[in-house]
């Protein structure tokens, strides 16, 4: 692993969006009903261990992953299983629980010092239902407990717009992050803490425990995948594990208190000037209690890699940002003739490129679907130096061998190439689909 203190990802992508949530962090009470939504757990094949109207307590197992039978997801609150929601092809989507705070949580053994071996740490994490928060490169899947990570990347910042800023909550969580890093140290000697170089946080405390790297880049470019790409000196690191700081807080608290930690920090943005802020919430909370539906698109996760929430309003497992994106249609005559001072544009084709206005995000496609015009913009922005237009051709021609040789698996699925494409091709979706297919083929 290379050991720089700072990496600069030169491919700049600096469109600015209006609506940064306020750094103020509010605490929300637990909602009368919560939902454990699987929307952000794509690689899990769930097998339920509870049934409708069962009583469950905080920290009790709800389901496990059939492909990884030791990986369970636990109930964040005590109460009664109110409803099981299935999607197409009888796929479990959400477990709704009617909260009952009177029921005491499940008591785990308190671990005041980190376990002494990797095996102990793993079984402690598995037992406490914390494993499903891990992810592994290159497929962004949940790693198998029996594997040994070649490196662990801890993300201190999600550089997509509007995600929780560690600086907003640092005093509350700094000790837990330190304790969490101690726990991770038992799993793997190579721990890389990735911070956003543009956020001022004192990282000195953690620099003896891990390799601390500040990434100077825009938006999605300081993702774990991008960090590994710029740091790796051998292909063993291609399968690094990663997590974010919230995971460290969760494991540190659960280990120390013996109670399944159910609090997370999230941001709301694009909802209203008064509501857009940081929040400390209970996992799986019902968002309609703070943000009843409005005529905007509700997005779980980032603007570039989020999921358009359909009907469910329960915060899915592992989602820490909720955005509402404007969907109003603006009609103007020949919009492509405008000077475009207010248009967000990566390219110099609109004046907005030079003026860098803060524009509110909108779901407008901004053009029509066309074939690739070889403009090369996608290549200009890719944080891991791929040639997305060539990859696209290979993927369309089903030539996955060449695509892999050209670096398909390095793709961080950041969505920035899709954002800039004037032909409105969803490149990252194609790469994601191909990667998912490959994963399934390999693991079939």
């Amino acid at each position: 692993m290379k050991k720089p203190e700072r990496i600069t990802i030169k491919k700049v992508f600096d469109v600015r969006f209006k609506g940064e949530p306020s750094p103020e962090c509010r605490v929300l009470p637990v909602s009368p009903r919560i939902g454990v939504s699987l929307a952000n757990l794509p690689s899990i094949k769930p097998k339920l261990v509870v049934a409708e109207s069962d009583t469950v307590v905080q920290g009790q197992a709800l389901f496990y992953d059939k492909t990884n039978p030791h990986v369970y997801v636990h109930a964040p609150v005590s109460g009664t299983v109110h409803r099981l929601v299935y999607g197409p092809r009888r796929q479990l989507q959400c477990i709704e629980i009617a909260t009952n705070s009177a029921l005491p949580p499940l008591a785990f053994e308190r671990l005041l010092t980190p376990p002494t071996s990797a095996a102990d740490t793993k079984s402690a994490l598995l037992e406490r239902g914390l494993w499903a928060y891990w992810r592994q490169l290159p497929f962004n899947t949940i790693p198998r407990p029996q594997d040994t990570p070649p490196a662990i990347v801890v993300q201190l910042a999600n550089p997509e717009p509007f995600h929780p800023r560690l600086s907003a909550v640092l005093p509350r969580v700094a000790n837990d992050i330190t304790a969490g890093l101690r726990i991770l140290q038992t799993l793997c000697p190579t721990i890389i803490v990735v911070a956003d170089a543009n956020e001022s946080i004192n990282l000195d405390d953690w620099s003896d425990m891990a390799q601390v790297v500040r990434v100077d880049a825009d938006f999605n470019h300081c993702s774990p995948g991008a960090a590994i790409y710029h740091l790796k000196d051998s292909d063993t690191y291609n399968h690094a594990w990663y997590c974010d700081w919230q995971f460290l807080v969760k494991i540190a608290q659960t280990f120390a208190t013996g109670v399944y930690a159910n609090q997370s920090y999230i941001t709301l943005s694009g909802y209203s000037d008064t509501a857009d802020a940081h929040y400390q919430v209970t996992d799986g909370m019902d968002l309609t209690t703070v943000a009843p539906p409005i005529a905007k698109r509700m997005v779980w996760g980032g603007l570039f890699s989020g999921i358009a929430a359909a009907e469910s309003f329960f915060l899915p497992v592992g989602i820490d940002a909720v955005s509402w994106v404007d969907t109003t249609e603006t009609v103007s005559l020949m919009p492509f003739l405008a000077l475009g001072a207010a248009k967000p544009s990566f390219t110099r084709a609109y004046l907005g490129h030079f003026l860098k206005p803060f524009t509110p995000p909108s779901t407008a496609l901004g053009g029509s679907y066309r074939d690739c015009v070889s403009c090369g913009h996608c290549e200009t922005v890719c944080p891991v130096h791929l040639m997305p237009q060539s990859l696209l051709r290979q993927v369309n021609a089903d030539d996955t061998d060449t695509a892999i040789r050209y670096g398909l698996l390095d793709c961080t699925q950041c969505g920035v190439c899709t954002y800039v494409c004037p032909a409105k091709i969803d490149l990252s979706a194609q790469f994601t689909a191909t990667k998912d297919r490959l994963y399934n083929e390999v693991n079939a």
Partner: protein
Amino acid sequence: MKFLYRRLQALAPLFEKGGRFERLYPLYEAVVTIHFGSSDTTRGRVQVRDALDTKRFMILVIIALIPVTLFGIYNVGYQFYAAIGEPASFGSMVMKGLTVFMPILLTSYAVGGFWEVLFAVVRKHEINEGFLVTGLLFPLTLPPTIPLWQVALGISFGIVIGKEVFGGTGKNFLNPALTARAFVYFSYPAYLSGEVWTAVSSSASRLVGYTSATPLGVAAATAQPQAVTDALSEAGYTVMHCMIGLIPGSIGETSVLLCLVGAAILIVTGVASWRTMVGSVLGVVVTATVLNGLVSDTTIPFLGMSPLWHLVVGSFAFGAVFMATDPVSSPDLKPSKWVYGFGIGVLTVLIRVVNPAYPEGVMLAILLMNVFAPLMDYSVAEYRVRKRIPNGL
């Protein structure tokens, strides 16, 4: 305006799947989006998109072409009155230019548009706005005397053979406008060489000792022991003339200065690659300099034409700025753009000098380099891939 938009939207079901005019959907889509842009919203995980689309892309190229087009129209009239030796006002020169140019342009758009719509309807894809550029570029490369039936044939060839047989815009590897021009050039050479550059009807008996040879024609025809520069100045051409462009030549290609204005627009807006342009200028300068060094008593005088003259005569400026930079037919990767541009410069001079039968080398040079563009990209990509740390299954 909103009203009109709503009316158009209300018609949508007729053209969408299952509607009565389902087959004409591409036409409907083109009409709506040309006037109001697209009202589509994002799908998938990327919720927001850049404002840039292919229409903006194409419109910027057209804006960059406006100066040369307007000047071309004026110059057609100017050359006409100069040839017949009659003084004329600015207005009548422009009028004359318009009467010559507009039929050519309209033919190009009408015939080109016909093929574009036909293929879109048959292949069930959207109409690509690229033809708006092709349809304008092609007339600008033609002499004002071109018969309209040749314009129609040329643009048909360019769009059908140069583009659609490969699957349409984005999949073609030759520049369609140049393909059209090359077709006309090789099928009807008489119309594109010799004294055809001034729009005087053949019955014009008033021609009084006026030569309408282009600077490139003069240079190619220079015989020993005369030097090219002398021949050019004898014919009344200076570098300044060629920069400004009030000289005989293809309609839109004579003014180097206005090509530079177009280049500035394309570069500032990021639509065309400056690497390609600079590369081709370097190619011309290097090659011409080398050839100048080879000049002896036995070589043709054309060999001694200076790099500066090579840059300002003929269609080089127009070709390097507007034709070579077509993103679809030029290479994708930055290093290959340098090589590609340089190659165009080298070939332009070589074709001009080595084969004076085709004094205009730019067109062939670009088409030839178009053919090699995928190979250049492939080499650069393979080189880059070899430097990556592999990430396999």
